[in-house]
């Protein structure tokens, strides 16, 4: 076999003074990077296998390990970066598409980081969330344009029946991650945390394991192009149904869960044969145009007796505003838009890194477009794709989102270190794997607690920021771009975002 030209991505430094050869690193590495010795108190490492997940570093009881990105030693070249060489070497060896996991890691502008929030000074008292209530309660679903009120004397009689709503205590939902792409324990962590925190998690296109039916009130189930695990009870047990058209990490392409990951439980959940590849087609083959979507939306509404909202998820692509408008008009109660930085368990790297647009721009345009068309209230806007902090959440809401999905942030909360190797199924953190040795590493009790903590912390921070703006109900910030100002953006970007430049007053 010809020698590989690939070079290790990481450099592992083992402090010999500190290493006690306890072999924790050996036992924890699913990639067999570390190797102990039966006869000597030494451990050696094979760097070429390291994915930089930092599991060994984290568990090393003496902090003897450091895993760093390796300086490649190539002649610096502004055009030909490491990743280009690495990609070419790999493809020259394998002839295949480069796969990757998690969201786009390219240095495209992150608009959240160019948006600044407002606060009250003098003319308007800020509100102290420790002393006064600040409400984050959010309802997702179609809002009627007006309440049909009939007056009997002085008493109002409401003739409008509210459309089904999803009530959130915090405007953050765990985004679609299927059981299959993530482990049972990871899914359980999400479901339990969603229930405890008063929000939702999304089944992804992996069906719903029977163990999670009791969590139905806090689960949004997905109907994707593969229709995996979709059946009557699946639709009915959930709090809402989401039709997945596209995904931010891989707009325009489908999904593929390799057969080796289709374990007994997954085959049972997805209703597919054991060890068969689970392939989600790129399009829904019953949706080749918007009116087909409408038909599916209403087919599902019929199936669930119009009792729960139906969402439609699309990837943020160039014409997203018009597409979203069509989706709203097709009857979606919630429109989910997933930006280019949205995560994935596996996607071709070239797609992930080059297709789609940042969610901030898509959100701003969709919200504005729907308002211009006077249909903003027909659907709630749920956005996804790279929400990293409570600041991102609150900025998204100020830009016009009703709530946000977090996927990567939730996984990071569970221990993910963004090594981007989800597609290998060897997640050392027990998240994106089905290997029973690895899945045990995520104790859902800890997972639940960490996620609930994360949401609680974000909620506190959001309340602090809201209070600072003198706002005590989240709906008063939603779409309230007056509380946002842009720094370091061009006029065009400001205009697309519908946000004034920092320094501009009211």
């Amino acid at each position: 076999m010809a020698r590989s030209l690939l070079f290790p991505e990481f450099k592992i430094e083992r402090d010999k003074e500190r290493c006690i050869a306890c072999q924790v690193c050996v036992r924890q590495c699913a990639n067999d990077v570390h190797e102990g010795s039966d006869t000597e108190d030494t451990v050696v490492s094979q760097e070429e296998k390291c994915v930089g997940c930092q599991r060994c570093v984290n568990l090393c009881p003496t902090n003897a390990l450091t895993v760093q990105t390796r300086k490649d030693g190539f002649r610096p070249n502004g055009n030909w970066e490491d990743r280009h060489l690495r990609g070419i070497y790999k493809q020259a060896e394998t002839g295949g598409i480069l796969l990757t996991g998690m969201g786009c890691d390219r240095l495209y502008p992150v608009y959240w980081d160019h948006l600044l929030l407002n606060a009250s000074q003098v003319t308007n008292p800020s509100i102290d969330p420790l002393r006064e209530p600040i409400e984050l309660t959010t309802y997702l679903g179609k809002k009627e344009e007006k309440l049909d009120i009939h007056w009997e004397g002085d008493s109002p009689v409401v003739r409008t029946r509210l459309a089904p709503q999803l009530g959130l205590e915090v405007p953050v939902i765990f985004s679609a991650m299927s059981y299959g792409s993530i482990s049972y324990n990871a899914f359980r962590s999400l479901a339990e945390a969603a229930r405890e925190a008063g929000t939702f998690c999304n089944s992804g296109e992996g069906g719903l394991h029977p163990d999670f039916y009791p969590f139905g009130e806090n689960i949004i189930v997905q109907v994707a192009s593969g229709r995996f695990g979709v059946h009557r009870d699946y639709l009915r047990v959930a709090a809402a149904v989401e039709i997945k058209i596209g995904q931010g990490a891989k707009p325009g392409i489908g999904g593929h869960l390799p057969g080796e990951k289709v374990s007994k439980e997954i085959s049972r959940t997805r209703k597919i044969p054991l060890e068969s590849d689970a392939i989600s087609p790129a399009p829904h083959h019953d949706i080749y145009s918007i009116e087909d979507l409408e038909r599916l939306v209403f087919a599902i509404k019929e199936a669930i007796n119009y009792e729960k909202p139906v969402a439609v998820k699309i990837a943020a692509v160039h014409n997203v505003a018009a597409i979203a408008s069509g989706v709203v008009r097709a009857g979606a109660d919630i429109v989910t838009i997933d930006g280019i930085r949205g995560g994935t368990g596996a996607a071709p790297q070239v797609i992930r890194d080059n297709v789609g647009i940042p969610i901030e721009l898509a959100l701003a345009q969709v919200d504005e477009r729907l308002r211009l068309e006077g249909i903003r209230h027909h659907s709630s806007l749920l956005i996804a794709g790279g929400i990293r902090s409570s600041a991102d959440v609150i900025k998204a809401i100020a830009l016009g989102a009703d709530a946000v999905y977090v996927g990567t942030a939730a996984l990071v909360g569970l221990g993910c270190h963004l090594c981007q190797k989800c597609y290998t199924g060897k997640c050392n953190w027990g998240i994106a794997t089905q290997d029973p040795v690895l899945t045990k590493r995520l104790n859902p009790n800890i997972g639940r607690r960490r996620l609930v903590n994360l949401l609680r912390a974000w909620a506190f921070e959001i309340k602090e920021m809201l209070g600072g703006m003198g706002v005590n109900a989240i709906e008063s910030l939603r779409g309230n771009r007056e509380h946002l100002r842009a720094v370091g953006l061009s006029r065009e970007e400001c205009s697309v975002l519908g946000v004034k430049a920092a320094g501009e007053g009211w």
Partner: protein
Amino acid sequence: MRDPFRIPSGCAVSGILNLDGTHVSGEKIIRSIEVMHERSNGLGGGFAAYGIYPEYAELYAFHVLYDDPLTAKDVEAILKRSCTIEHSEEIPCKETENIQNWPVFKRYFLRYRGRSDCEDDEVVRMVMEVNSGIHGAYIVSSGKNMGVFKGVGYPEDIGKLFQLEEYQGYCWIAHGRFPTNSAGWWGGAHPFGLLSWSVVHNGEISSYGINRRYLQNFGYVCNLQTDTEVITYLVDLLVRKHNIRIPYLGAVFASPFWEQIEKMEEPKKEFFTSLRTIYGGALLNGPFSIIVGFPGGMFGMVDRIKLRPMLAAWKDSTFFLSSEECAIREIAPSLDRLVALRAGEVISERVGERNSHGQKLTVSGV
């Protein structure tokens, strides 16, 4: 010239309503608002008066401010498209010690020619067209048998400029302004009027950005960047178009907290839940106390956590609303009843409808 800046303001507000319909001159309201001189800073003052044009009571009275009088023909062309100008005149003004320069103010009395079921909408459309389309002209009020008089200066000076002591009305509301950002534009002063609504407001609406965009959904174009403007439009939308009665505006503008709604009994709970769910975009967040005048009545309201003052008082057949008690005592030293509005509370009175001092209509105070 028109200034696109939104102006956060402090301010004084005051209102008088004669429940028996008795007309009084503007002298009292000027005295009342003048007491609260310190709440203003000379950058804006104004009044709304109801019942002042009994001879044209059936017609829309448009008060139009011309920064550029040459635009008058453009404005009139728009007005004439759907209305007949029965009468027009310059609004008489008299130079005062503190105000030597002022723009041209004209008033038009218009008869709408189209279908009666959409005349209000057409008038709103006309106002939007002029105010957003014609630079140099601005419609400050567009109701019937009422008018708004406002400008840059202390309210008492504005009152004298417009010679309000010469007008007779059954309801007067006034505003003295303390903007923290000098706009210096006459059209930006308060009250704000649309149709027969007039609104004065003390406060700063943190939710302005979304309230404004919410209104866009319903065709209201907010171009004044003032809270008062969005409040006016919201009142118009909710009361005139969505059939929400004034006493329940508090449930939308200053909604109870979810926790409180949770504890309500049905059907009240469902009503409040529905109102809040559907009208979340109309929730006014941040500090405010407002007085809204409308044909035959006046109401006052404060924000959901009472960050701005407002008092209501009754003396014989007169109903008062004001930022400060002194402003009421100035014109009615002894009162039958005086109450401070509670958070989210709406107190409304109408001519000929004697409530027991507002008690009956206090629905949304929690």
